[in-house]
């Protein structure tokens, strides 16, 4: 598969690993946060930790839209699914995410709610067309990458004059979350979390471009490398960041130039800008209330906004007290530091969000990397 296989070449990975080892200063430690779950997944799935020297530490960030959605929004989706006449459809990722009382959309479905999995927003539109007597609600989640497809669906619903289609919008924004992490007391004042550099998102950046990261590099004096999600992309990004740190530079570099430009996808950006506006504040699991970090539909599109069509509950029950997902998402703790990890919280029975999505920090560590903890303890 072109543009995939070349970026999974094991020998090249080894040679980049050698370059990193040669360039990393043995006297210092490099703390690199990969913001995106895609990078977390690549690191775990390909065992890249084994290729990095011990003084290059990867910190898994909150870049997984499934993981950061607060329980209240999942409860609200379940509430919507239970309204008479409603078909609630969403991406497969959301079905198993636990809301409060360990309920999930999958369990609500088992109890009789009409919950359907879709692969694309086009399927959601088709569902509305073929079920004219039902209300089809699309539970929209995702970062800047996934927002434009939602916008296209709403445009289509408008063109088709679909009265039975609406969107429960939970689209969130990457740069606001990175700001929140860098502004957190652990990073800014206490210094308990060291963050030397960031690997920037691949596919989010195809839409927003590399320009938005220039602000972080300057304001927070941290280097950023935008990188693809293939293992060689991740290795190369680490090498580029090690080099920037060594040289005292803090620039935005683009390893994923094959798909990301400085300005991104203007067509998608203007579609989103036309249809969505910023929410003043939105809750992220683990990061708390993050100002201007999520989108809602503008007034002219109110007819397709599920939150305007129904009085969607806004309660937000907190996470399990023992669950450390919040601290893990901010890089303050590791999965293994959580008492629930691997005991009562496993991928079969996830308590916290980091265990739900395949790319959540806990699920990735449990599924692919937990042998390392045992090797260390023996």
């Amino acid at each position, binding site marked *: *598969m*072109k*543009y*995939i296989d*070349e*970026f999974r*070449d094991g*020998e*090249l990975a*080894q*040679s*980049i690993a*050698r*370059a990193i*080892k*040669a360039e990393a200063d043995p006297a210092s430690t490099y703390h690199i946060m990969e913001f*995106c*779950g*895609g*990078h*977390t*997944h690549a690191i775990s799935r390909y065992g890249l930790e084994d290729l990095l020297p011990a003084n290059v530490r990867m910190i898994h960030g909150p*870049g*997984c*839209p499934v993981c950061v959605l607060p329980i209240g929004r999942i409860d609200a989706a379940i509430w919507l699914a239970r309204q008479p006449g409603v078909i609630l459809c969403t*991406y497969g990722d959301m079905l198993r995410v636990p809301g409060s009382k360990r309920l999930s959309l999958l369990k609500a479905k088992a109890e009789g709610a009409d919950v359907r999995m879709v*692969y*694309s*927003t*086009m*399927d959601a539109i088709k569902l509305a067309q073929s079920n004219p007597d039902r209300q089809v609600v699309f539970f929209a989640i*995702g*970062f800047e*990458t*996934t927002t*434009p*497809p939602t916008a*296209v669906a709403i445009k289509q619903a408008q063109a088709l004059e679909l009265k039975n289609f609406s969107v429960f919008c939970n689209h969130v924004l990457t740069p606001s979350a990175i700001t929140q992490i860098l502004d957190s007391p652990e990073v800014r004042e206490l210094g308990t979390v060291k963050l030397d550099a960031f690997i920037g*998102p*691949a*596919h*989010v950046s*195809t*839409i927003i471009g590399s320009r938005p990261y220039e602000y972080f590099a300057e304001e927070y004096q941290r280097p950023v490398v935008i990188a693809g*999600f293939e293992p*060689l*992309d991740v290795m*190369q990004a680490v*090498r580029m960041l090690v080099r920037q740190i060594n040289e005292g530079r803090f620039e935005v570099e683009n*390893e*994923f*130039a*094959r*798909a*990301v430009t400085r300005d991104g*996808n203007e*067509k*998608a950006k203007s*579609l989103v800008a036309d249809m969505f506006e910023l929410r003043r504040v939105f809750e992220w699991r683990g990061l708390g209330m993050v100002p201007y970090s999520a989108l809602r539909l503008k007034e002219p599109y109110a007819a397709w906004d599920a939150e305007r069509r129904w009085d969607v509950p806004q309660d937000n029950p907190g996470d399990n007290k023992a669950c450390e997902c919040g601290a893990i998402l901010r890089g303050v703790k590791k999965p293994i530091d959580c008492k629930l990890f691997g005991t009562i919280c496993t991928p079969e029975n996830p308590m916290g969000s980091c265990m739900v999505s395949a*790319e959540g920090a806990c699920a990735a560590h449990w599924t692919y990397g937990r042998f390392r903890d045992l090797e260390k303890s023996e």
Partner: protein
Amino acid sequence: MCLALPALVTELLPEDSAKVNLGGVTKTVSLALVSDVKPGDYVIVHVGYALSVIDPEEAARTLELFREMGEMAPEALA
């Protein structure tokens, strides 16, 4: 993250969509978010939409950088 993959555009279809091929698997995707796509291009596909067109020259340049890296790395550290 957002699961997205490069796929080869094999055929333009009506209603702003196209047939793409990934490792022999074909799928119809929407081109609503991109401009000037033609058969032979590789597009990054996410939830059934093409998000951007791959720049073959940049891809070649990135791969070249990987290789240079390998040559520069001292073998002794392997």
